[in-house]
């Protein structure tokens, strides 16, 4: 028996020496001990157990190798005592694989238990994802109720998010726009609706350059083709000082524009009312005074002449008394209309008060002004007014002197007018 045992030990030693020298991966971990036929039964049992042990180790090695390669379908015999701890690891890995799939599909209920540091890391990851999901939900709620259309672009300026208000305003659904570049669906428009060339659109340029862009008076084109006036703001998103995307927020300013336009119209009316004589429609005394100041400054600065004509309808009281105030008003209107038609565009004509009118004639000296006044005087006298009695007017003319003030100039015209009245009316006098 001792000789037989020695033979077996030598075979075992040779096999082990070969394996330890060349490594297990080079050849299978097999041992085939030849037990002499006539050997002791106990020795044969030992040989069988050693063969079986090596066979089990070989299977374990193959099993472990497959697992190391990521083959989670690998299997080992149930009675392979070496493989048992790895079977536990295999089960955990299969579960982790399933869990990873679940997390990828949005299931953040997953937890890993009793896998040491892996459990802590995985569970921290889940916690972080839950927090992110919670934040995303809150942000979504905010953007859902926000009265602003919101687009979120990635760094390639492709749409990755939009809120319901953006869909409501422009009519495009997320499915239609997802992944599209910004210039494919937000058209930079001029106010009249003509499109910017994308390369010259301020919005696209600022997006390209990663700059903030604001336009309180932009126009977007809706899916329906309708031009929507919007106020828009684009702000780049920076991550680690690198451009990671852009937020575009915009809102409809149609109503705002309407009210703004109506406000502007009201202001225009109020301004006109403030400067217009309501009866004749020409400028009133207040506006003319302002204009007179302006023109006097201009004339002084450029050393050009400036003259004023002050006219008063003769015996107007008799018109009112004889025909009534309505007819008197009609005569005033006819007078304003008549004179307006005979002046240059640059002349400034206003009702000075009652039946008095003033004409401001820039770039005109007193002699030219007097000639103009005489021409007007004749035209009035020859005009068929709506009253049967003749209507005439007296004129006082004054030319601006360097030392003149508003008051001194108008006073001279007034004195000249008084003189014209004194001298018989329907005539021109210079002051």
């Amino acid at each position, binding site marked *: 028996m001792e000789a037989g045992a020695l033979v077996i030990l030598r075979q075992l030693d040779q096999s082990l020496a070969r394996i330890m020298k060349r490594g297990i991966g080079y050849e299978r971990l097999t041992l085939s001990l030849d037990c002499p036929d006539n050997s002791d039964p106990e020795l044969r049992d030992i040989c069988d157990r050693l063969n079986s042990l090596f066979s089990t180790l070989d299977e374990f090695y193959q099993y472990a190798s497959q697992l190391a390669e990521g083959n989670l379908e690998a299997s080992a015999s*149930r009675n392979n005592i070496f493989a048992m701890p790895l*079977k536990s690891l295999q*089960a955990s890995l299969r579960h982790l694989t399933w869990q990873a799939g679940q997390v990828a599909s949005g299931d953040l209920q997953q937890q890993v*238990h009793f896998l040491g540091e892996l459990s802590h890391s995985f569970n921290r990851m889940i916690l972080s994802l839950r927090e992110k999901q919670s934040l995303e939900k809150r942000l979504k709620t905010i953007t859902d109720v926000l009265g602003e259309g919101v687009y979120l672009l990635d760094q390639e300026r492709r749409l990755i998010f939009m809120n319901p208000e953006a869909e409501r305003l422009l009519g495009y659904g997320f499915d239609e726009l997802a992944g599209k570049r910004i210039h494919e669906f937000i058209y930079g428009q001029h106010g009249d609706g003509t499109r910017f060339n994308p390369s010259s659109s301020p919005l696209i340029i600022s997006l390209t350059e990663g700059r903030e862009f604001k336009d309180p008076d932009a126009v977007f084109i809706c899916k329906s083709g309708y031009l929507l006036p919007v106020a828009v703001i684009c702000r780049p998103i920076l991550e680690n000082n690198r451009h990671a995307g852009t937020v575009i927020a915009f809102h409809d300013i149609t109503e705002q524009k309407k009210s703004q336009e109506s406000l502007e119209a009201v202001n225009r009316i109020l301004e006109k009312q403030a400067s217009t004589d309501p009866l004749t429609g020409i400028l009133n005394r207040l506006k003319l005074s302002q204009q007179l100041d302006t023109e006097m400054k201009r004339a002084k600065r450029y050393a050009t002449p400036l003259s004023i004509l002050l006219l008063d309808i003769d015996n107007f009281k008799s018109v009112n008394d004889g025909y009534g105030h309505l007819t008197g008003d009609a005569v005033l209107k006819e007078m304003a209309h008549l004179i307006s038609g005979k002046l240059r565009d640059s002349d400034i004509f206003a009702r000075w008060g009652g039946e008095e009118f003033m004409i401001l004639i820039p770039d005109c000296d007193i002699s030219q002004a007097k000639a103009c006044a005489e021409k007007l005087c004749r035209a009035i006298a020859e005009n068929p007014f709506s009253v049967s009695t003749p209507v005439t007017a007296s004129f006082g003319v004054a030319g601006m002197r360097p030392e003149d003030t508003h008051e001194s100039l108008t006073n001279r015209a007034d004195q000249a007018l008084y003189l014209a009245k004194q001298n018989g009316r329907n005539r021109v006098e210079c002051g």
Partner: protein
Amino acid sequence: MNETYDFDWDDLGNLEVGRPNLGCWASLLAYRLMQYTFRDVLSKEVGLDKTLELFIQAGKLAGRNFCLQVLDKSLGFEPFIADLKQKLIDLKIGVLRVEEADLEALTFVITVSEDLDCSGLPIFGQTVCNYDEGFIAGIFFEYTGRDFHVKEIDCWATGDRTCRFNIKPA
């Protein structure tokens, strides 16, 4: 044999009141001692097959009541499984892990590690977690309203380190 007993959750008693000093936890040894001596006695009374069938039935009854009393049936599948996992850990029954789940076909492969019934057992060459099979079937029945067939395919007692169960509609 004329009299029978109907299980009631309240029959488990008030553990906190009943064991003010020892608390509600007992040794796993005591549990296994009871289970395996039952297995011994019953198999000799009614045969092993019938004994295993009775274990499955008892497990199913336990699973249904466990689901009704401990779990939240109103949860969706994923949170329900998460809740189940946590409760099984809290009650030190085992560590449940899902390997496969087909929610359309309602087929699942799950594992239970450190299982109450078998972890650490010698290799018997056959699965022994029959009570668990019934327990899982009972939970799935209560949750889905459908009968399930649960078969243990790997067990510590067959040389694996975790119990693996195939679950499919009956």
